[in-house]
C-alpha cells in the first residue's frame, strides 16, 4: 500500500508544482530574458555572457533604468542543449512574459529558438552566434524576430582567408574542422569560398567529430600536403590537442583560428604549440575602451572578463537603445526599433543593423596573435563591404 501512496504523492507533487508555475502579477519593471549555457562544457562562455549582461543591467538601473523603469533580468540555463534552449525560450515568452530576450553564444541553439521567437513574437538578440542561418535560414527568408550583435561566419571566413593571403603570405592552406559543429562547418565553408576567390590552393580538408581526441591520422595527411597555414575553426579544447599533436608530428606551418580559441585554458594546455598562431575575434579584451568596465566587472564577479562578457554588454546596450527608440517596452515595438537601429556605440564597434538580414553591418574583426604565451592584439581588420 505504501508504495501506491508514494506514487500518488509523487504525481500530486508534480502536478502541483507545474501549476505553481503560473504568471505573477506584472510590476513596474521591464522584464528581459536571458538564456545561455550556464552548465556543461560551454559554461565558461555562457556564464561570461550572462555576467556581462548582469553587470550592464545593474549599471543601467543605477543610472535610472530605461524609460524610467528598472530592468528585471530573468536568467535560464539551456545547458548547451538545443531542446533545452527551445524549452527555456518558450518559458520566457509564455510564462515569464518577457519583452525581449538576449542569448546565446551558439549558432545551433539560436537557429533552434528562432522559430519559437517568431511564433511568440518576442525579439531575440544573439550575443555570439555567427552562422548566417540564424537570421536568414535560407535565401529570401528572414527571421523577423531574431537579431545579433556580432559579425557572421561569412565575414570571419573571409577575414581568415584575406589575412592568410595578405599578412601571412600563404598560398597553400589546409583546413581541419569539426564536422559535428555547425559553427565549424560554416566557417570552413566560407573560408574555402574566400580562399578560392583569392586564388589560394586548398591542399587538405580534414574533418573530425566531437569527442575525438586523436587527430594524428588527419594531421599526418595534412603534413604530407605541406601547407603554409592550417585553419582550425573549432573550440579551444580540441585546438589545444590538435596543435600539440601537429607539433609532435613535426608540422611547422602557422595555425590560424577563430572565435572558439580565446580562453586562458588554451594557453594552459598548449602554450608552446600555439606560440606564433593567430585567431580572428570579435574584439579584444585588452582594448582601451573596455578597461574601465573590465575593472568594474572584476570587482563585481571576482574574475576576469572573457570576450563573451563584452558581447553580452553590447547586446544589452543595443537592446536599451532599441527600447528607448521605440518609446515603449513592448515586444513588437522593440522589434521594429531593432530592425532599423543605427549608430549605437558599443565596445566592439558601432551597431548599424541591416534590415534585410538583421545583422550588424560594418563590424570589424580583431586579429589576435599569441606571442610569449599571451594573447596580443595584432590588428583590426577592415569591415565587410
Amino acid at each position: 500500500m505504501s508504495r501506491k501512496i508514494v506514487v500518488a504523492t509523487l504525481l500530486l507533487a508534480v502536478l502541483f508544482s507545474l501549476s505553481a508555475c503560473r504568471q505573477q502579477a506584472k510590476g513596474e519593471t521591464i522584464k528581459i530574458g536571458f538564456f545561455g549555457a550556464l552548465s556543461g562544457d560551454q559554461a565558461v562562455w555562457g556564464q561570461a555572457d550572462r555576467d556581462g549582461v548582469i553587470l550592464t543591467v545593474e549599471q543601467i538601473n543605477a543610472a535610472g533604468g530605461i524609460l524610467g523603469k528598472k530592468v528585471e533580468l530573468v536568467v535560464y540555463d539551456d545547458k548547451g542543449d538545443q531542446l533545452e534552449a527551445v524549452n527555456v525560450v518558450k518559458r520566457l515568452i509564455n510564462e515569464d512574459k518577457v519583452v525581449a530576450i538576449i542569448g546565446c553564444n551558439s549558432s545551433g541553439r539560436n537557429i533552434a529558438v528562432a522559430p519559437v521567437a517568431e511564433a511568440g513574437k518576442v525579439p531575440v538578440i544573439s550575443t555570439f552566434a555567427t552562422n548566417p542561418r540564424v537570421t536568414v535560414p535560407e535565401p529570401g527568408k528572414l527571421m523577423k524576430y531574431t537579431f545579433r550583435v556580432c559579425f557572421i561566419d561569412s565575414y570571419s571566413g573571409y577575414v581568415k582567408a584575406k589575412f592568410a593571403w595578405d599578412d601571412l603570405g600563404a598560398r597553400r592552406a589546409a583546413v581541419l574542422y569539426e564536422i559535428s559543429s555547425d559553427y565549424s562547418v560554416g566557417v570552413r565553408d566560407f573560408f574555402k569560398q574566400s580562399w578560392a576567390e583569392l586564388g589560394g590552393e586548398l591542399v587538405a580538408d580534414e574533418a573530425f567529430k566531437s569527442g575525438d581526441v586523436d587527430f594524428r591520422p588527419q594531421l599526418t595527411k595534412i603534413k604530407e600536403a605541406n601547407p603554409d597555414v592550417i585553419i582550425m575553426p573549432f573550440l579551444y579544447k580540441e585546438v589545444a590537442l590538435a596543435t600539440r599533436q601537429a607539433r609532435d608530428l613535426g608540422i611547422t606551418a602557422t595555425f590560424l583560428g577563430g572565435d572558439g580559441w580565446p580562453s586562458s585554458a588554451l594557453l594552459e594546455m598548449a602554450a608552446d604549440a600555439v606560440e606564433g598562431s593567430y585567431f580572428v575575434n570579435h574584439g579584444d579584451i585588452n582594448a582601451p575602451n573596455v578597461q574601465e568596465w573590465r575593472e568594474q566587472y572584476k570587482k563585481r564577479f571576482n574574475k576576469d572578463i572573457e570576450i563573451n562578457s563584452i558581447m553580452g554588454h553590447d547586446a544589452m546596450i543595443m537592446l536599451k537603445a532599441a527600447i528607448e527608440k521605440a518609446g515603449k517596452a513592448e515586444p513588437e515595438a522593440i522589434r521594429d526599433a531593432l530592425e532599423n537601429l543605427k549608430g549605437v556605440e558599443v565596445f566592439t564597434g558601432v551597431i548599424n543593423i541591416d534590415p534585410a538580414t538583421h545583422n550588424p553591418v560594418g563590424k570589424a574583426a580583431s586579429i589576435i596573435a599569441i606571442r610569449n604565451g599571451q594573447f596580443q592584439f595584432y590588428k583590426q581588420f577592415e569591415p565587410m563591404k
Partner: protein
Amino acid sequence: MSGYFAGIVILTCVNLLAVLGLSLLTGFTGSFCFGQAGFMAVGAYVSTLLTMRLNAPFPLALVAGCFASLLVSIPLGYPTLRLKGDYFAIATLGFAEATRLVVENLEKITGGSRGIPSIPTRTSLPVILIVALFCVWLIRNYVSSRHGRNCIAVREDQLAAEAIAVNTFRYKQISFAINAALAGLSGGFLAHYVGFIQPSMFGIPKSTELIAMVIFGGMHSVTGAVLASIVLTALPEVLRVASAWRLVAYGALVVTIMVVRPEGLLGSWELSWSSLRELRSAWQRRFQTQS
C-alpha cells in the same frame, strides 16, 4: 491549458512512446538496448525529410519514419540478437552513434550537424495523446497475451524457453522491431513538435534518460513505464535548479534500483480493472480492521 503545460504533456508522450518500446524490449524480453536515441533519430529525420522536401502529409510521414526505423532494426538485430546480451548492448550503442555520424556527414540531405530548422509543427496535443494511449493499450495487450508470456520466458531463461519450443530469436527480433517502430514514431512526433532537429539531440544522454525511465517505473510493468515517463519528464522541468545533477541522479537511481529493488517502482503491477478492484478491497479491509 497554457502552451507551456501542453508542451510538457506532449514531451511526456514523446518520451512515453520510446519508453514503451524499451519496456517491451529490455523490460519484458530482456535485451538491453542502449541506442534508443538512434531509432528516434531515424524516425525524426525520415519523417522530417518527407514533410519538408516532399511536402508529404504529416500522418504519412510519421508512419514512414516509424517504418524506416523498424526496417533498420532488422539487419541490426540479425547478427547481434543471437549472441550474449553484451554484444547486443554495445551494438545498439554503436548503432546510435553510427546513425549520428551518418547524419552529420550527409550534409546535403540532412543538414549535417546544423540540423534541419523550421520544421512545420504538426504535433498537436490531442493527436499525440490518442496515439500514445493507443500504443499503451496495444503493448498492454501484447504483453498480457501468450506472446507477452513468451517474451518473459525468453527473458527469464532462454535455454528453457527454447526447450518448450519458443523461438527465442524470433521473439527477440519482434520485440526489437516493435521497439524500433515506437521509437521512430516518437522521433517523428518530436521533430514536428520542437520544429528543429540536430544530431546532437539523439546522443547518449537521450538514450540514458529513456533507460532510466524504464528502470525507474519498473521493467515488468507497462503502467510503470507510463508513470516513469510522466514523472521523469515533468520533474526535471520543475527542478530546474538542480539540473546539472540530473544525469548524476539518473545514474545513481539506476544503480540503486538494480541493487535494492530491480523491479522498479511498480514491479509487475499493472493498472487494470482487476488491480483497481484489488486496491479498493485492500483499502476497505484496512478501514474495517481499524474500526
